[in-house]
């Protein structure tokens, strides 16, 4: 479904992503782990079209999206979340949801020529309410997002992605800063969506969370892939262990 081949991205002299190839098959949950600065978020930015790749190719649903802008990739059915969930601060929770509905805006002429005051489609609003209820945010729908608490923002980040009704979700650190109760709820939602056929590419640090949910994991360090395999294989991999725990000191003679 999503194929990343030999992608390279540098910022000046820093090669943030080097030669990374990833394959995400439909209906699977693929994980991407690595320490801070490993290049995971940069890879996300390149894949979602917010940053152009220096070289390599990215294809999604059989189409080459290497040079595709973020809005185009989004129209094809790719949605991503952000590590820092700020959302649209001075817009209500409901507005945040509606913006992610693909048919919310019908251009400029429609409202100019309309006789009645504008109103979003009741079906869209109802769908937004259903999603918000699932994430425990329905009561907050008329509040500005800047007035939400951090966990609520985290939930809204995911709720918006669901609202987009995508074919693939790229989740950037969904478990970071989330308390255990909410995390369980998050896992439940991800698995629920997967049962309905959703595909995921997830970046996170939390190994327990990742191993519990992912079918296949790629590990990155310093911009490169250092390991890949099933969760069991990856956590047993020496390179990954070195990266996460640090190298075992050599035995003294």
């Amino acid at each position: 479904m999503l194929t990343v081949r030999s992608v390279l991205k540098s910022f000046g002299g820093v090669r943030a992503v080097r030669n990374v190839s990833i394959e995400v098959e439909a209906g699977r949950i693929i994980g991407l782990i690595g320490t801070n600065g490993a290049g995971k978020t940069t890879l996300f930015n390149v894949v979602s079209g917010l940053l152009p790749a220096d070289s390599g190719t990215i294809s999604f649903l059989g189409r080459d999206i290497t040079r595709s802008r973020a809005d185009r990739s989004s129209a094809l059915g790719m949605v991503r979340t952000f590590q820092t969930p700020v959302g649209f601060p001075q817009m209500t929770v409901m507005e945040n949801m509606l913006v992610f509905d693909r048919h919310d805006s019908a251009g400029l002429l429609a409202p100019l020529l309309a006789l009645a005051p504008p109103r979003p489609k009741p079906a869209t609003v109802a769908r937004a309410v259903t999603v918000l209820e699932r994430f425990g945010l329905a009561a907050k729908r008329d509040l500005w997002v800047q007035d939400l608490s951090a966990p609520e923002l985290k939930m809204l980040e995911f709720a918006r992605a669901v609202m987009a009704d995508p074919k693939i979700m790229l989740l950037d650190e969904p478990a970071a800063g989330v308390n255990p109760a909410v995390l369980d709820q998050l896992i439940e939602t991800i698995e629920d969506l997967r049962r309905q056929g959703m595909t995921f590419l997830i970046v996170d640090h939390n190994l327990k969370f990742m191993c519990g949910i992912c079918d296949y994991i790629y590990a990155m360090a310093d911009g490169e892939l250092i390991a890949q395999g099933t969760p069991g294989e990856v956590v047993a991999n020496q390179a990954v262990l070195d990266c996460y725990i640090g190298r075992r000191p050599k035995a003294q003679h």
Partner: protein
Amino acid sequence: MEGLLLFAVSLLSLGAIYAILCLALNLEAGGAGLWDLGIVSFFGIGAYTYALLTAPAAEPHQNYLLGLGLSPVVGLAGAAVTGAITALLIGLPTLRLKREYFLITTLAFAEVLRQVFANEDWLTNGVAGIYGLEQPFRDVLTPSTLPYAFLVIILASLAIVYWLVAKVSGDGFGRALKALRENEPLAMTAGIYPFSHYLRVFMLAGALSGVAGAYYVWYNTLVVPGQFSSNVTFFVWTALIIGGLGNNRGALVGGFLFVVMHDALRFIQASSDMALFLSSLRTVMIGAALILILRFRPSGLLPERPARIAVGGR
């Protein structure tokens, strides 16, 4: 008493012109986060378009293009169209720029346009401007009722502009613009392409400001380049900030309030020395009002409010 009434009518008419400009600026700056420092460009283009379309052909001592003597309605429509086209031409190169750069280039374009108005004699009659334009409906109305008729027309136009702007900002398109204002990368991942959205709203704001320019000529019966300095841009921004950036009603209130603060002192009969003093004083007053607003009500008299969306029919 009659004088006071006429003065109030004149003040309200000018207030309505400013309110249209404030609504146009609020659409792009308040609604889409476009920090346009060149709103006067479209105001000026609209004014000159209106003048050239509706003025009689140039006299021997004058020099300007067209002078078709067309009806004011055609003049107004023309002003809207050229306002939008100017916005398109300025927007194409500038709307890809980030905020600060957009701000400085729009300011530069406004200055370029003012120089064009002042120096292209063949087109605009240069710094001398075009004087003595007939107020519309002079032949059907008595001179004493003309100001009232103008007030009614401009208020009706303001109502239409308000209606249009409110529809756009309350619709999905307006939501998309707000999303771009709030968080452009996130808006892009929601499928919103910034450039095309910015360009469209910029053109609409240009068209509305063009209409305001046409009414300004109608109001003054003359058009000279000095009317279109960047002061106008800053006046409109001040009015909008006082009224409430991001709130259409705030823009409306800001436009009228600004004109009252800026021009109410004109009514005082004074010696020439005193008049000079008073005219400097009004700038001081506006500045003081702006400082007080920013200190005590930084989001304006009518701040932006969360947009409530009704759930479950009704």
